[in-house]
């Protein structure tokens, strides 16, 4: 009789373990809470420019993206949003996507933030964002000169 109970317990245990695979994964409480690593990432994804007008900044972003060979997908002026993508030539199956937001600051300057994705993985190499902002600065500066 004891064997019966032990086997029974084992079966229940096995059953419970198996059932684990049937339950839907639950989101972690931190899913919508950015971690410190993510917050640190934000610092080199953003840069502030001496541009007062959001429209001017957006045009500069679009011009810079076109210079870099990107195709503009979506642009929303009231929200200061530009989405662009380019195919990783010569490998035309990989795509680099970038989302740029433009936000006017209280001090009359504009903050530009860029998120780059390479085939569904976010790019967190700071050099990438440095390069982008360098091109953007050139594009905005050229505009200012004329």
């Amino acid at each position, binding site marked *: 009789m004891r064997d019966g109970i032990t086997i029974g317990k084992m079966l229940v245990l096995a059953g419970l373990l198996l059932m684990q695979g049937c339950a839907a994964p639950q989101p972690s409480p931190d899913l919508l809470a950015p971690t410190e690593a993510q917050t640190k990432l934000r610092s080199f994804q953003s840069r502030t420019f001496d541009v007062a007008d959001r429209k001017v900044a957006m045009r500069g972003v679009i011009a810079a993206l076109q210079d870099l060979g990107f*195709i503009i*997908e979506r642009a929303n002026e009231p929200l200061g949003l530009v989405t662009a*993508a380019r*195919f990783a030539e010569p490998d035309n*199956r*990989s*795509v680099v*996507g970038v989302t740029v937001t433009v936000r006017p600051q209280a001090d009359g300057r504009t903050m530009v933030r860029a998120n780059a*994705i390479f*085939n*569904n993985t976010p790019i967190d190499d700071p050099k990438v964002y440095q390069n982008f902002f360098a091109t953007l600065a050139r594009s905005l500066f050229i505009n200012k000169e004329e």
Partner: protein
Amino acid sequence: MPVPRTPYSGFLPTGFMLAVCFLLQGCPSPYEMRHENQWDSREQIGMAEASQVKLRAAQSRVFDTSDSRRILVAVVSTMQDLNFKVQVLDEELGVVSGKLLMSFERPYYPDLYYNLYDDQSLLLFSKNYRMWGPFWHRSDLVRLTVTVRKRNEKQSVVRASLQFYLQAVENPEPYQRFFQTIEKSLFLEGHPVQGPG
């Protein structure tokens, strides 16, 4: 004297049939045959001058009004009557554009993405080496773009261009009917555009 029949003469038609069957495997399917064929598909990027002139005549009308809003309202209402999904509408630039899906092909496997297909997104393209699903979406797509441009103080040129089954519609009849409907809503007559395009 009759020609003697050899023992193998019966195989000839059968052999021929078998050869044809093998050959037919190399022939395009009926769906493929409905696609225009050319030597270089890049020819489709621009458009030959001759086609442009022909299309321009069929697709354009001059209306004796400079009120582009009135024209656009009539165009949008006609597109709605035709069940087009109006996607672009810009009064200041004088552009209306919409699309419609007409199912000519019935896919032989259930296709969940047919209606959900976002054909604007580039980011979707790299996710799969082969893009499953909405293959027939493109040939089923009917697109209509109407532009309204001021010709002078009192006149506007309205041009409607229709895309149907992967081709620009060159037959003037659909455009004639379309402009007849617009004319009725506007109580104006549309004249063909004279002179150099």
